[in-house]
């Protein structure tokens, strides 16, 4: 029996949809009718699920589906040239499928290859550092019968920096199974104690104390508990979890084993973002090895023997599913909408049972902490954030890739490491994080000062800040789940304001509006997406006021965004068309 079979039936919905999508290249009406019957849900509910995720298609998306990153980093790496090259090679424009249904070309938010852009996914296989020539080659090889997996690249794990060996936590060799001896040494409470002492906190960016989360989950009595690894890193510019999944799947699995042992969970899942589907098979192989060695499955040997197993659950394209309650809904085969926060997953999570959701990096840290001992761990980093942090660096710098830094590092020192000589702006912790200017470069990277989930995007003087902000805003508008109005429409309206600024139609009042509207969106949104989506725009206005002032026009009583010539153009065209004879 497969592990998935222990989960409620509904949680297999996404994988059923994936099977059909992969075979048929879209999900047809007939398929939907059958699936709805199979899962005993209404057809419209199913349509709601399918239409929530952007990798499920309702129309043929081509035998070879190409996704190109739409993030600003990709644009600055030459995305437009790449798109043009693809369009030329396959003969259709972005967003379309060739007449013979061979190729489909689509855009997607960040695909997690920011250090190797321009990049794309073809049938979810990675192709990195693209050039127009390379694209021609790829397309002709596919036309000659090669499969995407045969000719794809293996994304390199570029580790640019680690601290001295004693202080390195993640990026150093690991002997599989070695940490598992602690299962025999400690009982569950003792492991939770160790993790609490270590001050380890959620590395996805929320920084909730991991030990506490485990303890809460342990305290909630239930016949079934779940451990879910959040491998849905969707914040534009981040790819650190990809590298961990690639280099150290063992650390992750062992981290999950410790979590399961500590809280008393017998089932686990890795929620893998669809953009990393090429890692799924590898992960499953490692899981198989662990199972064969008796490290997963029934009666895992420990001070108190226990059962635990893990399967890989594939996402289908939705940034919001990185939010833990949305992720849980998605795993349940529903729309990935976040919950209200009156009950936490540790009490009622997946299938209504106590559930721990931890980030990849958090879980990977657990075996390392046990291995090196809490005291040595605490000796690294700062008081609030001990240990090291993985940062994904991309943009205008010489050395893109992963940096394992000791918490507390000075920003200027860090910038020096990246080889960025003319950094003007740094988007720290992704578009939902903080935008840094020169003045911030003397700050330190730590929980006390500049906290970070993992994404670091560097921009030099030649980059247009408003263009960057517009790109972020497009992303949030696209990725809002739509359940609450401040986020759903508020972000859309802010996007319009950015347009106004870009076109030079904005006045001082528009800047005041942005500040006021952002505050409303921030304070009333249902989840972290809306609460943080306007951060970068407001930071930008505060830290680079001169850029905005330059774009402002004179204050008047007339709305410059209203263009009379444009507004009557359509009428003119209609009349023109009607009065033209073609004979």
């Amino acid at each position, binding site marked *: 029996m497969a592990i998935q079979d222990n989960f409620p039936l509904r949680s297999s919905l996404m994988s059923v949809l994936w099977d059909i999508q992969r075979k048929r290249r879209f999900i047809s009406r007939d398929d939907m009718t059958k699936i709805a019957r199979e899962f*005993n*849900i*209404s*057809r*419209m*509910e199913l*349509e*709601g699920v399918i*239409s*929530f995720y952007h990798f499920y298609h309702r129309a043929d998306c081509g035998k070879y589906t190409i996704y190109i990153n739409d993030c600003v980093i990709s644009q600055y790496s030459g995305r437009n040239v790449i798109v043009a090259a693809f369009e030329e090679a396959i003969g259709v424009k972005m967003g379309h499928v060739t007449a013979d249904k061979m190729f489909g070309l689509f855009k997607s938010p960040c695909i997690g290859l920011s250090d190797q852009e321009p990049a794309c996914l073809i049938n979810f296989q990675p192709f990195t550092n693209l050039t127009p020539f390379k694209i021609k080659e790829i397309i002709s090889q596919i036309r000659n019968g090669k499969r995407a997996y045969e000719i794809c690249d293996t994304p390199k794990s570029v580790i640019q920096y680690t601290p001295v060996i004693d202080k390195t936590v993640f990026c150093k060799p690991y002997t599989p199974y070695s940490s598992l001896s602690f299962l025999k040494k400690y009982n569950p409470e003792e492991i939770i104690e160790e993790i609490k002492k270590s001050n380890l906190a959620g590395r996805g960016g929320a920084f909730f104390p991991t030990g506490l989360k485990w303890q809460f989950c342990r305290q909630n009595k239930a016949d079934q508990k779940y451990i879910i690894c959040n491998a849905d890193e969707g914040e534009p510019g981040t790819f650190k979890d990809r590298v961990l999944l690639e280099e150290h799947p063992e650390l992750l699995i062992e981290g999950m084993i410790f979590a399961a042992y500590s809280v008393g969970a017998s089932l686990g899942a890795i929620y893998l973002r669809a953009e990393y589907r090429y890692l799924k098979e590898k992960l499953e192989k490692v899981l198989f090895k662990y199972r064969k060695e008796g490290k997963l499955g029934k009666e895992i040997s420990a001070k108190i023997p226990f059962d635990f197993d893990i399967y890989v659950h594939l996402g289908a394209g*939705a940034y919001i599913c990185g939010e833990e309650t949305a992720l849980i809904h998605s795993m349940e085969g529903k*729309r990935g*909408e976040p919950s*209200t*926060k*009156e009950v936490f997953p540790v009490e009622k999570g997946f299938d209504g049972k106590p559930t721990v959701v931890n980030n990849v990096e958090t879980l990977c840290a657990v075996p390392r902490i046990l291995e090196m001992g809490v005291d040595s761990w605490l000796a690294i980093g700062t008081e609030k954030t001990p240990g090291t942090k993985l940062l994904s660096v991309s943009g205008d710098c010489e050395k893109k890739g992963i940096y394992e830094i000791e918490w507390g590092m000075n920003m200027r020192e860090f910038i020096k490491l990246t080889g960025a000589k003319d950094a003007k702006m740094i988007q720290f912790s992704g578009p939902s994080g903080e935008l840094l200017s020169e003045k911030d470069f003397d700050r330190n990277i730590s929980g006390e000062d500049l906290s970070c989930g993992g994404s670091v995007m560097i921009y030099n003087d030649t980059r247009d800040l408003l263009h960057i902000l517009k790109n972020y805003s497009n992303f949030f*508008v*696209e*990725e*809002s*789940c*739509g*359940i*609450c*109005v*401040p986020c*759903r*429409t*508020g972000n*859309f*309206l802010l996007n*319009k304001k950015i347009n106004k600024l870009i076109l030079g139609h904005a006045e001082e009042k528009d800047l005041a*509006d942005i500040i006021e*509207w952002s505050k*409303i969106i921030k*304070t*009333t*949104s*249902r989840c972290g997406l809306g609460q943080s989506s306007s951060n970068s725009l407001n930071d930008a206005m505060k830290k680079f006021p001169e850029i905005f002032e330059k774009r402002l026009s004179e204050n008047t*009583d*007339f*709305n410059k*965004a*209203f263009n*009379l010539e*444009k*507004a*009557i*153009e*359509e*009428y*003119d065209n*209609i*009349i023109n068309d*009607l*009065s033209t004879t073609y004979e």
Partner: protein
Amino acid sequence: MNNKVKLKIDGKSIQAEGGTNLVDVAKENNIFIPTLCYFKELNPLGTCRICTVKLNGKHTTGCTVKVSEGMNIEVNTPELLDNRKAIIEMLYAEGNHFCPTCEKSGNCDMQNHAYDMGLTVTRYPHVFSDKIVDFTPKRMIMESNRCILCKRCVEEIKTRDGKDVFSFVQRGIKTRVHIDYEQEAKLSEAEALYAMKICPVGAILIKGVAHEQPFGERKYDILGKDVIPSFKSGKAKKEDHEKFIVATTSLAGCFGCHMSLLDIDTGLLDMLEIVEFNKSPLTDIKNFTKRCHVGLIEGGCANEENVHVLREFRKKCDILIGFGECAIMGGIPAMRNFIPLKECLEESYMNGMTSEIGADIIPAHEDLPKLLNNVYPCNEVVKIDYYIPGCPPNAEHIWKVVKSILLGEEFSITHDEFKYD
């Protein structure tokens, strides 16, 4: 069970049963937390966000808070009141809420909140997105233009075999509630009526019964409170011996607002003691002959000429007042914003029931103003200073506003006078 807890709401010490819902606790203590999606203590939805309060200094939705010992809750701070108003305004801007044509008007929770908040206009530009009105089900109509995605119907209406009748589809700004026809057919009459009843706006309608209750006798026609509008400081300035000068115009409107203007009857004579009309259909003065204190605008902008006139008013008047729904949000004419202009013209002049066979004349002449691609609310073309809602606005309401702007007096508007429909 004795599980009394002490908490504070807006500084007031309150005792309540621990674990009960904050919205209900507040209500019992005469503190009103407005809600749209909340209607059942079990499973609060937390989608509409207007009940956002501050709990121990942090923002959260009131409907999801269960009271416990020592809580300090803020409900009616200026910031929170404005947040609530802003969310209602955003819902108005996002949807296409034409109260004058809505079957639910008078029974609509959202409309009532807007009345209570004295909302005359939304601070956000109207999105005017094209949304489907689904007439397909036998009994029901799903009017997505009015849907605020509160999720009540999605969570609450199920068939007897446990299937959803209403579902969210798409995501982000494109999110909609759609009906599953097969499941809808399974509902009993009573269940279908219940679906219409729990819809806080006019999105779910049952054919044939939506108009049963007469307007004027509906839930919020009877309830509801008077409004004290917020006014900017300063009044119109003039020399003592002069009269105030007022101009009026009707753009893309029906002149109904101007008709309403005359409805103060003999009051008009008192008005003329202090007011002199310049450019206006009332005086038939076609061009401005002097600068005006106040310009009253009826109707939105549907053609070129409307835009020119409106801009002229902005230049010649110190204060502009938009009166009537059309001036404020486009009104009935703006319903064409969801249909391509070409289709509108073809329907009117070529394919309409009364047009001649083979007719292909769409009016076009240099003397005719050109149509705009959309109908624009006035404030999307020029700055408008004040708004008087209604279709048409009540005569008393119009003159109260005009007079108080001219004289700088404070006033209040009765619930009867303040209407969108």
